[in-house]
C-alpha cells in the first residue's frame, strides 16, 4: 500500500511529505530508539510518541517509509525541517498508538512478514 493512501484513509497530518508515493511494507511501534534500530525494517512505517529531531536520523538510517507521531503530540519545528531535508515522510495523528496501529492493521499493514 502506498503511504499516500494511508494518509487519506487515516486522515494523517502531513508535516513533511517528500515521498508520499513510497510503498509501505509493514509497521512498527516503539518509543525506545535502540529497539527501533534493532527491529524496524526498511520500508516500514514507524509509530512513536517521540517528536524530537532524533527520530529523523533513525528513519534515515533504517530507510523507513515514514514516521507517524501519534497521540496528538506536536513534533518540534526542527523535526519537520530535518525530515524535509533528509527526505523523510513525517506524519502526525491525534489517535493514540494502539488505535492507530489497529487501524493500520485493518488496512493490511502488518508488523511481521509471515503473520
Amino acid at each position, binding site marked *: 500500500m502506498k503511504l499516500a493512501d494511508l494518509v487519506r484513509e487515516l486522515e494523517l497530518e502531513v508535516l513533511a511529505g517528500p515521498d508520499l508515493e513510497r510503498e509501505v511494507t509493514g509497521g512498527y511501534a516503539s*518509543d*525506545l*530508539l*535502540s*529497539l527501533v*534500530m*534493532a527491529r524496524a525494517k*526498511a520500508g516500514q512505517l514507524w509509530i*512513536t510518541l*517521540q517528536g*524530537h*529531531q*532524533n*527520530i*529523523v*536520523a*533513525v528513519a*534515515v*538510517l*533504517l530507510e523507513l517509509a515514514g514516521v507517524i507521531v501519534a497521540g496528538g503530540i506536536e513534533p518540534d519545528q*526542527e523535526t519537520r525541517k530535518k525530515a524535509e531535508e*533528509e527526505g523523510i515522510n513525517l506524519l502526525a495523528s491525534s489517535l493514540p498508538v494502539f488505535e492507530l496501529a489497529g487501524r493500520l492493521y485493518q488496512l493490511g499493514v502488518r508488523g511481521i512478514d509471515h503473520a
Partner: protein
Amino acid sequence: MGDMAEQAIILEFSLQGQDFIRAGEASTEIKQRLKKLGFRPDVVRRVAIVAYEAEMNVIIHARKGSLRIEITPRRILIRTLDEGPGITDIEQAMQEGYSTASDMIRELGFGAGMGLPNIRRFADEFKLQSRVGEGTLLEATIHAD
C-alpha cells in the same frame, strides 16, 4: 566493488557530548558512503546500527570523542574513543536494560540499555575497553563477505 582500491577508506568524525542536534549525522554519512560503494543492504544495515549506537553512546555519556571507520572490501571496522566517565562494570553494561543515562535522556527514548547489546549482536567482532574517570574505547568489526 571491483573498482574499490585495495587500501582502506578511512572516515573520521569528532563527537561532542550532549549534542543531540547533530546526533546521528556521522552514522548517516557512513551509511550513505557504504551504499555508494555498493555493499550489500544487510551489511549496510548492520554497520548503520552499530555506528549509530556507538555514536549515541559517546554523545549520551562522554564529554567528547571520535568515531572512526575503516572500510575495506571484506570488512568494516568501527571505532569510538571518548573522554568521559568510563564504564565501571563492563559485564553489567552489556546486560540488556541496564543503563546509567539520566531521566532527561530516557525521555527522549535513549538510555534503554540496548546500545551495547545491539552493537554486540550486529557486529561480528566486538571489543570494549574502559578506564573509569578517563574514557572508553570501543571497536566493532563487520564482515562484508
